[in-house]
């Protein structure tokens, strides 16, 4: 097995890329894609430790996270479609109707 630190570095790199995407992009669809990258980084960590310890529970929690990502993508993209129908924009800094 490759040393566990390499898996942790890969996961941290994907997490950093995802955070940069969430913070700097203006397009909401790409922000949601970056959230998917972050959730994937978490999954890599969980499964690497599951392999190291020899217990299957990390994989079960990764399964829960995949389910959560699917739910989040469905609801988030539904919100994007509803918002686009009302305001004709997909840019995050123009979504300010709740700002007072």
């Amino acid at each position: 097995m490759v040393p566990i630190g390499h898996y942790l570095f890969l996961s941290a790199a994907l997490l950093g890329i995802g955070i940069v995407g969430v913070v700097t992009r203006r397009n909401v669809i790409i922000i949601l894609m970056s959230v998917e990258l972050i959730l994937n980084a978490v999954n890599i960590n969980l499964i690497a430790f599951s392999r190291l310890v020899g217990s299957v529970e990390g994989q079960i929690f990764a399964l829960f996270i995949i389910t959560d990502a699917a739910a989040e993508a469905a609801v988030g993209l539904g919100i994007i479609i509803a918002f686009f129908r009302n305001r004709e924009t997909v840019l995050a800094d123009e979504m300010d109707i709740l700002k007072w």
Partner: protein
Amino acid sequence: MLDSVTFYIFATLAVVSGILVVTRRNVVHSAIFLATALLATAGIFLTLHAEFLFIVQIIVYTGGITVLYVFVIMLVNLDVALHQVQFNRQWLVALLLTVVLGAQVVAALALSRGTLYNMPPAPVTQLEPNTEQVAWGLFHTYMLPFEVVSVLLLVAMIGAVVMSKKRV
């Protein structure tokens, strides 16, 4: 040997396509590189002997979520957004966050170098009938979280239908 070669190939693929997801101007290209990154992650799961999650990752992420993204990109007309500024002026915040995160990871690995690095991995046979073990844990030890997750999926399904209805 083969194990580490496959790991480094898939890791490079995942990181490079992750960077491309964040930096491309066209959203369709981002969606395609997202599919590549998710497939590379599935390969990494395979090197970790998580065969069931490898298949689930390909079916749910690449086959389900990415297709959902592509459909939404088709529904949302993006020709206008393509010619606007793609990044907002928050690169300083992003830089700060990633530097703090990187420092945390390096510090944690340096502190645990004696224990974590030298810890021998468990024998592969301990995870051997992978699908059976996952199923046993899912339907025996983690029965209640499993049911809660199914309720979450139901809520998400209803929420997605309600959100994309014509008149709310």
